[in-house]
């Protein structure tokens, strides 16, 4: 019949018209500022630096090993090593970054820095409200702005954080056991 297909189509849009009023499956829009989606554990937006303890700068896990800087595909990480060293969680003396900048306007949220970091020092954040009126300085994050406590990481990525924490506990325990088994050399530091 002429127009049968058109009528079928009209019925379909009418069904969606009615459906959008009662069926959440159809009306998938989330009205953003009032509603937000529940956070997704794996979601990633931009990187941050993890620190332990109360002092952000002292507790940074980052050892300025430069791996992330080298691996970052868009080359948005910039690190300068500090001369001073500080002990890490296993008591080993490690370097620390003097400057750790990430240009967030260049970062493409791929998460490769997280994957390559051997110290679990850099992780992906889930913030997305980053708009600023200063696109150069406002989006260049330094280590103070990047540092987040480990609790924050635990809050975002529960599974990953508990894995990391367990591993670090284990390593710490092993290191302590090693240190106990092998008494420090007389007179030796380091």
């Amino acid at each position: 019949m002429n127009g049968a297909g058109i009528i079928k189509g009209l019925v379909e849009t009418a069904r969606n018209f009615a459906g959008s009023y009662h069926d959440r499956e159809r009306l998938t829009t989330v009205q953003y500022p009032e509603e937000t989606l529940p956070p997704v554990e794996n979601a990633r937006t931009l990187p941050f630096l993890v620190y332990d303890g109360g002092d952000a700068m002292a507790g940074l896990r980052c050892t300025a090993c430069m791996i992330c800087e080298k691996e970052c595909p868009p080359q948005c990480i910039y690190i300068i090593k500090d001369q001073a060293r500080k002990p890490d969680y296993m008591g080993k003396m490690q370097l620390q970054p003097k400057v750790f900048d990430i240009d967030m306007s260049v970062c493409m949220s791929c998460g490769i820095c997280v994957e390559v970091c051997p110290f679990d020092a850099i992780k992906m954040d889930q913030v997305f409200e980053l708009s600023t009126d200063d696109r150069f300085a406002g989006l260049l994050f330094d280590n103070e702005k990047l540092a987040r406590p480990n609790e924050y990481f635990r809050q975002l990525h529960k599974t990953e954080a508990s894995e990391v924490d367990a591993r670090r506990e284990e390593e710490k325990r092993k290191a302590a056991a090693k240190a106990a088994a092998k008494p420090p050399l007389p007179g030796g530091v380091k």
Partner: protein
Amino acid sequence: MSARFSPPELAGTDFEHPLLEVSLGPHHPSTHGVFRMDAALDGETVVKLKPVFGYLHRNHEKIAEKCSYLGSMPFTDRLDYMCSLTNNWGYALAVEKLTGLAVPERAEYIRVILGELTRLINHSAVVGFLLQDMGAMGTPLMYAFREREKILDLFESLTGARMMCNYMRFGGCRCDLPPGWIGQARGVAAKFPLFLDEFEALLTGNEILKARTEGVGVLTPELAVNAGVTGPMLRASGVNYDIRKVDAYGVYGRMDFRVPLGERGDVFDRYMIRILEMRESLKILDQALRDIPDGPILNLNAKLRNLRPKPGEAYGRIEGPKGELGFYLISDGGPNPYRYRVRPPSLINLTVLEDMCLGQTIADAVVILGSVDIVLGEVDR
């Protein structure tokens, strides 16, 4: 100032039909991004059409030659930004060929699942865009995007990102499926046929759609094969060529699915083939979600950093949603590829645009372009 404008090279060739030369694009509403068609029109009939591209060129291949092998992976997301996972897969396949890394079975299944979900996203969105080009106010597109949201949610909970997934790694995948993911995916796959039925009720029988697409933009099988057209466009012309069958990469060899083939190679066939392929994809999804084994997801020998493949070359290709997506790599033993080359299906499918558009009206040219299914990120790279 005359309203008529005869371009110099065309003026005087035929006094009876002064040609109107219009440049559709690069910021035309329906050129799918920054694509341009220089068309010479006689009335509204296209007598000459020159595709112009390169407006979105981002130097992808040269950047990849300066990047580590891993570092190019997130860049492949941005080739065809509708289907980042299949791009990942193509690139991973090429590097795996180069290095000889084997992929664990579970990872292969995950790849198949993600690849088919991507195909669903792509095909439904393409049909939506095609109808958008036909002036359907975006309604089918919105329905397609509604379903796409659900699949993107799956991607987000697995890979952490909705579009730029950066998920596959050489020798497997980045992370394992989160708990409950398979169930969710089954739920989405089970509801998708309802959406397809709805889609078909809205579109397939529609007289206007038929009038606009039947017999429009016919691509003969000979021309399609000669021009190297691949993917749904080639199959709509009736040529049986699907790399999932030909190469049986991944675990496609174990999957039971059929390849739908078109009859006439016009826009309607291209529309219909995509719908039918989605139905076949759902079959594959069902099997893969049912059979997925436990096990590791990454080859234990896989190296994330400092990958230095032995000197040699490799070509990895997959059946992307748009056609044969190939990555060609030459290694000189260094940490980055010596030569990196993408075979973008969109670009090669686009080369037959003029042949399909000649003699059709300008309104048809837009629809034909929509049926080719291009993403400029891939065409221009």
